[in-house]
């Protein structure tokens, strides 16, 4: 079973919400939709689920055209960011509701609901009502409904966003194994890059109603194909600045420049945009190849064992994220060191060139 989008678009009153998108989503691994709020993740999910109609293009499930089919016939499940359960029904009835609508035999419903409840540790809560449950339990009920239904596609639209930190961690760990081996296509929308990395699988980066890149999550993180993709998939935000290349050197200005090695050295001379993740800029020069850059410290944050500093260099604000506790003085100049081996170079049109 695979879910395929062929050049689909979505328009609402002449405004394009989803620009032409083609994707082939496969079962077995998580398919993560990563993008900021408003990037079109929910719109895309609604199209795949059949809650909205595409303007153009085709949606295929297992090679079968389902473009005009109702959500019920597509046999899908959708778990929302906030907890959607029928308020006056018990947890059991909530999990059983799609099976009952489908007219399944009572004994089979019983078996399926209990199996799903066991997986999600809801057995003791089966006879409670949603408002007697914690947020985590309510969301697990919604997940159990998706599992009991044995849907061919499961859409999780930021399902952990409304849970508190600990529960989120716990449930995120469980999620991949929960759906492993069920043969369903799992689509998981999130706005947090870290979440995509933890879930693994494949990631589709979304920006302005468009999928900018799709592929194995780690690979995309290592090689974003455009500056936009790099920005979407970086938290804290990736640093970027214009540079001039001539010969085997690039100059950032303000006395910062470095020697190029590898494919970047082979680039034609001209202006490029360099981008580097904050964790490759450190106040410590651990290698001789690191490029020194001095900037005025503006904001500092200390989160546990990591130090973040925002510093100004010319027109750009740079962010450094380094392990360990470092002392910065706001308003004073501080020397940072950048690892040039982890720089991305983008052409003026935004495409990755090295």
């Amino acid at each position, binding site marked *: 079973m695979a879910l395929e989008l062929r050049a689909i678009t979505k328009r609402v009153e002449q405004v394009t919400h989803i620009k032409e998108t083609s994707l082939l989503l496969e079962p077995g691994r998580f398919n993560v939709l990563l993008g900021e709020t408003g990037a079109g993740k929910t719109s895309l999910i609604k199209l795949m689920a059949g809650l909205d109609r595409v303007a153009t293009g085709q949606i295929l499930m297992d090679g079968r055209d389902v473009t005009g089919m109702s959500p019920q*016939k597509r046999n899908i499940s959708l778990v929302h960011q*906030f907890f959607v359960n029928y308020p006056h029904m018990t947890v059991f009835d909530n999990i059983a509701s799609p099976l009952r609508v489908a007219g399944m035999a009572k004994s089979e419903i019983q078996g399926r609901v209990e199996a799903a409840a066991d997986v999600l540790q809801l057995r003791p809560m089966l006879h409670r009502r949603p408002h007697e449950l914690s947020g985590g339990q309510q969301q697990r009920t919604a997940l159990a409904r998706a599992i009991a239904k044995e849907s061919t596609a499961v859409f999780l639209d930021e399902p952990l966003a409304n849970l508190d930190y600990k529960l989120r961690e716990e449930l995120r760990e469980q999620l991949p194994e929960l759906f492993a081996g069920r043969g369903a296509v799992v689509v998981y929308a999130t706005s947090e890059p870290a979440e995509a990395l933890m879930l693994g699988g494949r990631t589709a980066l979304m920006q302005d109603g468009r999928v900018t890149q799709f592929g194995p999550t780690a690979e995309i993180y290592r090689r974003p194909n455009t500056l936009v993709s790099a920005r979407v998939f970086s938290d804290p935000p990736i640093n970027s600045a214009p540079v001039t290349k001539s010969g085997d050197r690039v100059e950032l200005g303000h006395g910062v420049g470095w020697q190029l090695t590898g494919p970047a050295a082979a680039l034609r001379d001209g202006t490029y945009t360099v981008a580097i993740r904050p964790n490759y800029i450190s106040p410590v020069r651990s290698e001789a190849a690191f490029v020194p850059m001095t900037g005025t410290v503006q904001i500092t944050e200390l989160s546990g064992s990591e130090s973040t500093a925002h510093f100004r260099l010319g027109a750009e604000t740079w962010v450094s994220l380094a392990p360990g506790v470092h002392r910065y003085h706001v308003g004073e100049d501080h020397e940072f060191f950048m690892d040039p081996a982890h720089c991305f170079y983008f052409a003026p049109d935004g495409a990755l060139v090295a």
Partner: protein
Amino acid sequence: MRKVNQKGWLFVLPVLLLVAFNALVPMMTVVNYSVQETFGNNQFFWHGLGWFEQILRSERFHAALGRQFLFTAMILAIEVLLGVIIALSMPRKGFWVPFCLVTMALPMLIPWNVVGAMWNIFTLPDIGLLGYVMNHTLGIPYNMTQDPLAAWITVIVMDVWHWTSLVVLLCYAGLVSIPDAYYQAAKIDGASNWSVFRFIQLPKMKQVLTIAVLLRFMDSFNIYTEPFVLTGGGPGNSTTLLSIDLVKIALGQFDLGPAAAMSLIYFAITLFVSWLFYTLMTRHDVK
């Protein structure tokens, strides 16, 4: 040891005074009248529970109370049902929403005595639009000043016209507060329209419906102005509801004692039925 701060009383005092003057004092005056007999000259004689006994045994009271319950039951049944149906069929987003809301709110903005007067003129057989069309165009004899049935129908239609909007607006508020996600879930489950109503919309409307029923019960049970202006309780006594009868006794006949006793009985019934409704409609709610 906790120190008790007596300043709290200062804060409660204004409300206490207000409530005393607008509720407790007038009510105690009524209680005072209800146990005494007066022949004017500000002379009062103790009469015990005599007035209460007289009212409770009076056929006139029974008849008015019966009419009152009939009226309230009918308008509640019609207005709640109609209100829910209209609220369900109103658009939930888009251009027509403000139009529908304002149209719905209009009847409620009209003063009660104007509503009565409006309907009175509306139904006049010779010059009223409704009266004329019924009698002269459609050929259906309709004169609510002579025919008790016509009077009843008119009073009820008038109340439905005036107050269904309240139920509509309350239900509508309940409906729009349902997140889209619930409808999506129902769509994915393939639930029928009836299931969506029964399991998503009705539970969400239940609380506002409780308020709507309570408000409409109390208002309709105490209704005075509109039927008084429309029919004056007639023809005969056919539309003399409790409040109209009460005013007749108190101000028409100036029987202060019986009127006071009747007021208290009236009040007790209103209170009891309101409590009953509230308890019945919220008994399944879990805290």
